[in-house]
């Protein structure tokens, strides 16, 4: 148990974990995660896989919006680019998935850089609309470039294989997904201990002042878009393998809004917030669905009413969070943690 903060070296100040207990806890968590596929049903593995993909996507979006302050609603487009590029690289060029996904993420990063160019001149709402252009252009290309993307018929994603083992079940994809989630989270956490991360935060807080003290807005804004799109590319590539078929209706504007809701509810400007938000947004529909399905077994006529309530509950959740806890689930978690750390003292 810590008591106050007494540090003599800069290195100690920069540590992610002050004590060894959280590290041990994380190792236990990773160990538990590796055992999960043996005990969970396909349905819950599917949910966990989607949570993993959402975590990567949400961290990417949080880097852009939460840490750098650049509002973007084009995230679905970047996911789509990542997903389709992965599928095309594997189907047409025969690349194995562990090369195709990073390559696709790089392509998405370049794509994000291009669509991030408006951020050099626009801010806030105007930038949001400019990123919307990315979304519409991508959707249009997907539908019309039929030779590459299969157009409206969709693209079947080849099954990934590792040393001859076909990764065609949720249990096997689980390992791939979480093998990406863990480094992604650590990279993002580390990013904000470095100069680049501090530059991002400076741009969010006061970009004019940042520019005055020498932070190159050009370089760091575009870097933020690239890194965020790289994350989206990885998430998209994993999504392609998880759902096994890609088609034009899969990446609607609603997906971008879902990710936005994830980071708002989870907490903008916080990696832990992205994780919480991703878990919340993925689990809530599942819980609602289970409730609706089981209740409809008993009261069949109620199905319509309960199933439609999903959107109402989401809206309420977002509004409630913005009123009572604007900093999201991460802040709530910190408050609970601090309460127990300092108990019985108030501070």
């Amino acid at each position, binding site marked *: 148990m810590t008591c106050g903060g007494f540090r003599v070296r800069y290195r100690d100040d920069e540590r992610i974990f002050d004590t060894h207990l959280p590290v041990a806890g994380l190792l236990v968590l990773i160990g538990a995660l590796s055992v999960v596929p043996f005990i969970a*049903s*396909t*349905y819950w593995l*599917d*949910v966990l896989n*989607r949570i993993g993909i959402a975590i990567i996507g949400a961290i990417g979006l949080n880097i852009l919006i939460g840490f750098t302050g650049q509002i973007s609603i084009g995230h679905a487009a970047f996911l789509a680019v990542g997903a389709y590029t992965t599928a095309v690289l594997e189907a047409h060029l025969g690349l194995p998935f562990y090369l195709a996904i990073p390559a696709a993420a790089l392509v998405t990063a370049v794509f994000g850089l291009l669509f991030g160019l408006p951020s050099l001149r626009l801010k806030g709402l105007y930038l949001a609309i400019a990123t919307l252009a990315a979304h519409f252009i991508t959707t249009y290309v997907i*539908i019309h470039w039929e030779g590459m993307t299969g*157009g*409206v*018929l*969709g693209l*079947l994603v080849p099954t990934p294989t590792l040393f001859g083992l076909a990764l065609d079940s*949720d249990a096997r994809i689980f390992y791939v997904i979480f093998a990406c989630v863990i480094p992604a989270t650590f990279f993002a956490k580390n990013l904000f201990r470095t100069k680049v991360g501090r530059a991002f935060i400076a741009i969010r807080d006061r970009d004019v002042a940042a520019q005055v003290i020498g932070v190159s807005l050009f370089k760091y804004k575009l870097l933020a878009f690239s890194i965020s799109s790289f994350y989206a590319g990885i998430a998209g590539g994993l999504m392609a393998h998880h*759902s*096994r*078929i890609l*088609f*034009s*209706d*899969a990446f*609607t504007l*609603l997906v971008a809004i879902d990710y936005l809701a994830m980071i708002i509810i989870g907490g903008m400007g916080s990696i832990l917030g992205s994780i919480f938000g991703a878990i919340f947004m993925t689990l809530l*529909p*599942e819980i609602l*669905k*289970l*409730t*609706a*399905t*089981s*209740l*409809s*077994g*008993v*009261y*069949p*006529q109620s*199905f*319509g009413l309960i*199933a*439609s309530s*999903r*959107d109402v509950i989401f809206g309420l959740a977002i509004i409630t969070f913005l009123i009572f806890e604007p900093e999201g689930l991460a802040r709530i978690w910190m408050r609970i943690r601090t309460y127990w750390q300092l108990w019985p003292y108030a501070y």
Partner: protein
Amino acid sequence: MHKSFVYVCSVVLLLVGFGMLSPEARAQGSIKLGNLVDLTGPTSDQGKDISQGRIDAVQYFNQKGGINGKKLELVSVEYGFQPPRAVAAYKKFVEEDKVLLVLGYGTPDTEALRPYITKDKIPYLSGSYSGHLTDPKQTPYNFPGGIDYSTQIRIFLNHVKETWTDTGRKPRVAFIYADNAYGRAPIEAGRAYAKEIGVELVDEQIIPTVLTDATSQLLNMKKKDPDFVYINTNTQCVPVVLKDSLKLGLKTTYVVNNYGFDERTPSLAGDAAEGVMGIADVAFWGDDVPGMQTLMDFHKESHPNDTHNSPYMRGWLWVMVAVEALKRTGDNLSGEGVKEALESLRDFDTWGLSQPFTYTPEDHRPTTKARLYTIKGGKLIPTRAVELPRNLAWLGK
């Protein structure tokens, strides 16, 4: 305030808990069907009636004794027209509920689940009538629940050819369709068939899925002056096209596909709906067919104040087909057994709610017959019965 909040919460939790615990209390040996609907997405206006129709039909058949004594159970999931939710729901259907058949809904869920159902061997009776689902060699477990879109567009072109009297020139047609998988499904087939029978396709206009204004597309189309136009989009968008067309003074006859019009179109489109024709795959509410009285009685008994447009009839129709297939499997209750039972249906009488259904192991087109309706004086008037031969070259297109 704090206390009443706690009371309300506990009541809600009790209801939920009761609901979640009751699976154990349900009768053993019930047959489960997966049910996917869209109640919150872009096709929710139809989804509501389809969902209601399915729930009512299942209740009705259970009242009549179920299937060989076993009760029918719907495992319903609302998926908001978003494919990932459909895939997640399907995984649960197969793993936990062990469904024998999935009552699919529309194009996104059907397309997304195509590889899965073929691998798991679960028949998929879909509301998506895409021509790509009709070839058992490519999609052995997909069963479109009605006359496929490609056959519909060919029916339209035949109608144009047959009613064209001017020998001086060829009839001119145009297609207006939504920019998504559903809208585009029959267009390739339409282009090929138009060329084949000598009808001139002068224009194609693409409209967004959610349509608020079609003026720019219609102005472009007006320049080409088509005599007949085929609209392939949803009931929500068709009135917009029709009203804008009336505003722009276009002199063309519109024919709408089965999902583009129903009892509400005349009231939604007003005067613009006059003279518009549509291809009907199901009977309309109140039509003089044998099964209509059963539906109307059941509807009045359970929820007399609810809507009952043609999607409601579709809900009943698909459950009826599923029930018949399940009855025919007898004891061989597996996905493959149900598939074979479906493929044994020959001119199956659906109480007149639709044309008789025939599925064969080589051909998953349920029917190639339909009725053309015309909207006159705000009412849907049956105009003619049309039929296309079961040309095997058209399978899967």
